C-alpha cells in the first residue's frame, strides 16, 4: 500500500498508562516517531511529559502499554536496554558526576565494568569527532563541576551520541539556557536530524516548539489531547490546546513611578556556595514600579534576594531603606521594614511542609497581635487569617487545618502570596514567583503582583524566563556573575539584546559600575 512512501517509523508508543497512587500520570498514550523528524511534546508541568519519557527510557515501568524501537519491542524498566536500542536521553536534571572529567562521564558504563582499562585514548578521538560533527565544543578533560550549564548539556548530548543514539529525547533542554545557547542547541539538533537522527523535544515554551519541531503532540492531565503539524498551527492555538481554556496575558498599565524605597549603592556581598556574590551593585526600587531582574540562574540572583530578604549583609557598599540606613540587618528587620518575600523555593524556604495552612499562614507574623498575646498563640485568630487568604486568593485545599504538603505548587504559592500581600508590604521581593506553576496559577500570581504595584508597592521580580520579565517589568536589569546591567526601561531592549547581556556581553570595561 502506501508503506513504501512513508518514512521509516523508528519509535512507536502504544497505550502507555502509568499511575502514581491515585494520580494517572499517563493515560493510554500512543504515537509514532519517524526517522529524521523533531517532534515536540508540549504540556504544562504535571501533564505527564517527563513521566512518559522516563518510561520510554526505562527509569519507570508502565502499568500498561508497550514501546517498540526500530520494530523491536523494548523490555520495560531497563535504561541499559533503551541505550542499546539507540535511545538517548538528555535529562532535565543533568545526570553527570561533578567530580569527574567530561571524558570520564561519557565513558561511564559504555564498556564492561570488568575490563582493566578505560580506553580513554580511543574515546578521546571519537569524542573530538562527535564534537566537531555536531557543533558541541567542550573540553574532554575539564571537570564537569567547573562547566557552565550550557556546557554540561553538551556533555549530556555527547554521552548519548557516543553510544550511537538514533533517537534523542531532550527533557526541557532550554530551561537553563540563555537565548544564544538555545540557538546553538537548535543548530546541533538540526545537524542531528540531517544525519538521520530523530528527536523528541519536551517543552512548555511555545516559541521554541514552533521553531524546532515539525510536529507537536500536546499532553494535558496525562492524556494526549492533540497532534498537529507545526506548520498548521500557531502559538496561540497551541497554548489553548495545552491549557484547555482561553487565556489572556496580564497587562501592565502606564504608571508614573513613586519615590525610591530601597537603594543599593556599590554593594558587594560574599559568595554563596557555588554562586557568586554581588559585585558593585547599584539598584533602586521605586514605589509603584516592577523592576525585573533577568539572568541565567546562578549569576547572583540568590545573593541579591538574600541581601534584600535580610539573610545577608553587604561586605561593602551602602543600603538605603526609605531614606534610612538600616542598623541591624536581619530577616526580622526586613519584615519590620515592610519587605515581603516570595522565596525561590516554596517547598524548602517558603513553607513548612508538615505544618497546617494556618500555621504556614502566620509563619511571618505569629509573634504579633492578634495572633499571639503575652506569649500565647491565639489559634482562632490565626485560623481566621488563613481562611481569609484561602478565600481571597482562591487557594484550593481541604481546609485551613490541612497540611500544606498536600497542596499543589500553585495553591501553595497562592497561600504564600496571600500571606505576603495581606501584610500590606512596601517592597515585594518575588523570586521566581511562577516557576513550575500552570498557566492558570501563573496568570493569577502575575495579576496580583501587578495589582500590588498599582497600589504603590515596589516589586523586584527575579525570573529566568525572559518573556515573563519583559512582559511584567517597568524597568529591567540583567544580572551576570554578581554584576548588574544598567536599568533598561520597558520596551527599550529586544529579547535578543537582553540575551546578549545575559551571556555577559556589555559587562566588560566601563560596565563594572553599572
Amino acid at each position, binding site marked *: 500500500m502506501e508503506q513504501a512512501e512513508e518514512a521509516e517509523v523508528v519509535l512507536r508508543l502504544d497505550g502507555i498508562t502509568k499511575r502514581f497512587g491515585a494520580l494517572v500520570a499517563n493515560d493510554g498514550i500512543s504515537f509514532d516517531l519517524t526517522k529524521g523528524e523533531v517532534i515536540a511534546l508540549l504540556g504544562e508541568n504535571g501533564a505527564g511529559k517527563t513521566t512518559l519519557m522516563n518510561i520510554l527510557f526505562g527509569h519507570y515501568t508502565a502499568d500498561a502499554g508497550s514501546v517498540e524501537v526500530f520494530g523491536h519491542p523494548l523490555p520495560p524498566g531497563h535504561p541499559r536496554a533503551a541505550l542499546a536500542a539507540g535511545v538517548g536521553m538528555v535529562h532535565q536534571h543533568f545526570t553527570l*558526576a561533578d*567530580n569527574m572529567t567530561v571524558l570520564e562521564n561519557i565513558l561511564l*558504563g559504555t564498556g564492561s565494568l570488568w575490563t582493566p582499562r578505560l580506553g580513554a585514548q580511543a574515546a578521546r578521538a571519537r569524542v573530538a569527532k562527535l564534537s566537531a560533527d555536531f557543533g558541541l565544543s567542550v573540553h574532554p578533560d575539564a571537570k564537569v563541576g567547573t562547566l557552565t550549564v550550557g556546557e554540561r548539556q553538551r556533555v549530556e548530548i555527547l554521552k548519548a551520541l557516543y553510544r550511537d543514539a538514533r533517537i534523542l529525547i531532550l527533557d526541557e533542554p532550554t530551561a537553563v539556557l540563555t537565548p544564544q545557547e538555545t540557538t546553538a542547541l537548535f543548530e546541533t539538533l538540526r545537524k542531528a536530524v540531517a544525519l538521520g537522527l530523530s528527536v523528541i523535544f519536551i517543552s512548555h515554551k511555545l516559541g521554541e516548539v514552533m521553531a524546532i519541531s515539525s510536529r507537536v503532540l500536546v499532553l494535558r492531565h496525562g492524556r494526549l489531547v492533540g497532534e498537529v503539524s507545526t506548520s498548521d498551527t500557531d502559538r496561540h492555538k497551541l497554548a489553548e490546546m495545552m491549557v484547555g481554556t482561553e487565556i489572556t496575558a496580564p497587562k501592565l498599565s502606564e504608571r508614573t513611578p513613586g519615590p525610591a524605597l530601597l537603594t543599593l549603592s556599590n554593594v558587594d556581598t560574599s559568595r554563596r556556595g557555588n554562586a557568586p556574590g554581588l559585585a558593585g551593585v547599584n539598584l533602586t526600587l521605586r514605589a509603584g514600579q516592577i523592576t525585573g531582574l533577568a539572568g541565567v540562574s546562578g549569576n547572583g540572583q540568590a545573593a541579591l534576594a538574600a541581601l534584600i530578604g535580610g539573610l545577608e549583609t553587604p561586605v561593602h557598599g551602602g543600603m538605603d531603606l526609605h531614606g534610612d540606613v538600616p542598623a541591624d540587618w536581619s530577616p526580622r528587620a526586613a519584615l519590620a521594614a515592610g519587605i515581603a518575600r516570595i522565596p525561590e523555593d516554596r517547598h524548602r524556604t517558603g513553607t513548612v511542609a508538615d505544618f497546617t495552612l494556618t500555621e504556614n499562614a502566620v509563619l511571618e507574623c505569629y509573634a504579633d497581635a492578634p495572633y499571639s498575646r503575652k506569649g500565647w498563640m491565639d489559634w482562632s485568630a490565626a485560623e481566621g487569617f488563613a481562611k481569609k487568604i484561602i478565600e481571597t486568593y482562591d487557594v484550593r485545599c481541604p481546609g485551613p487545618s490541612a497540611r500544606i504538603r498536600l497542596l499543589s505548587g500553585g495553591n501553595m504559592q497562592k497561600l504564600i502570596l496571600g500571606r505576603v500581600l495581606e501584610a500590606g508590604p512596601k517592597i515585594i521581593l518575588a523570586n521566581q514567583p511562577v516557576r513550575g506553576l500552570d498557566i492558570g496559577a501563573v496568570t493569577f500570581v502575575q495579576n496580583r503582583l501587578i495589582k500590588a504595584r498599582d497600589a504603590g508597592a515596589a516589586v523586584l521580580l527575579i525570573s529566568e524566563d525572559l518573556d515573563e520579565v519583559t512582559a511584567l517589568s517597568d524597568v529591567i536589569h540583567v544580572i551576570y556573575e554578581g554584576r548588574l546591567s544598567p536599568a533598561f526601561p520597558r520596551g527599550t531592549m529586544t529579547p535578543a539584546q537582553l540575551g546578549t547581556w545575559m551571556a555577559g556581553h556589555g559587562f566588560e570595561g566601563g560596565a563594572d559600575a553599572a
Partner: protein
Amino acid sequence: MEIFDILLSASFWAAVIRIASPLIFATLGELICERAGVLNLGIEGIMVIGAFAGWMAVYLGAGLWAGVLVAMLAGMLFGLLHATLTVPFGLSQHVVGLGVTLLATATASFAYRLSLPEVTSPPKIEPFQPWEIPIVSDIPLLGPALFSQTALTYLAFALVVAVSLVLYRTPLGLALRAAGENPASVEAQGLSVTAIRMGAVVVGSGLMAIGGAFLTMSAFSSFFFEMVNGRGWICIALVVFGAWKPGKALLGALLFAAFDALQVRLQQTPMGAVVPYQVFLMVPYVLSILALILMSRRAEVPAALMIPFNKGER
C-alpha cells in the same frame, strides 16, 4: 633530647608501620564504601568480627591465610547485611551502621563464650612471622623498619596501590565513584546503582575485617574483647583526613601511627615520670583532630554520600 633518639631508631619506625597496617586495611575498606555513597559505621564491629573469626579459624586448625580468608568472609557477611538494609531498603546509614557494629561485636563475644566456655585467658595462636626481604632489609634504619614486617603489612601497602588503580584507572572505579557522586548518572548510563553500591559495601567490609584480623594474627596472637578499641572510628576520620583518596589516607594512617608509637615511647622517658600517662594517651587523638581540621577543610566530599538512591522515585 630523647625525642630525637626515638625518631632515629629503627624500632620506632617499624612500630609505626605495624600500628598503621590494620588502619590501612580498614580505611581503604571504608573509603571504598564512602566513594560509592555509603557511610559504613559498621566498621568497628566488622573489625571485631574479623579479629575474632580469623583467630578462631587458625586456633581450630586452619592455616594463617585461610584464617585471613575466613575473617574476610565474615566481614563480607556483615557487609552484606549493612548493604541490604542501606541500599535497596534505603534505611538510615547511621542507624544501620551502629546496629551492625553492636551486632557484630556481640556476635564475636557470644561465639567466643560459646566455643571457649571454660577459658580464663584466651589461647594463643602462632601468628604471621616477620618476612625479611633479602638485600633491602639490610639497609640501615629503613631496612628493619620497612622490610622486616609480616606478609599482611606488605599486603596492606600493596592494596593502597591496587585500590588507587581500580578507582582511577578502570571502568569499575569510574562507576563506583559516579555512584557516590551522582547515582542518577550511573542509572542513566544503564548500570545498576544498587549492584555497585552493594558490591562496594561488601568488598569494603571484607577489607575492614582483614584489618581486624591483623590484630589477632599479626600484631598480637590472641583475641581480647576490647582489642579493636576505637580503631574503626579512627579509620572513619582517616577517610575524611585523606579527602577520600587512598594515597592521602595512607599518609593519615602513618601519621596517626607515628603519634601513637611516639606517645608510648615518651611515657618511658624522664618526662613520663612527671606527666600523667593519660596525657600521652591523648596525644595521638588530639593531634589527629588538629590534623583533621587542617587537612579536610577543602576536601571534596562525595556528593551523594549517605543519600539513598531509589530508582523511579518522584
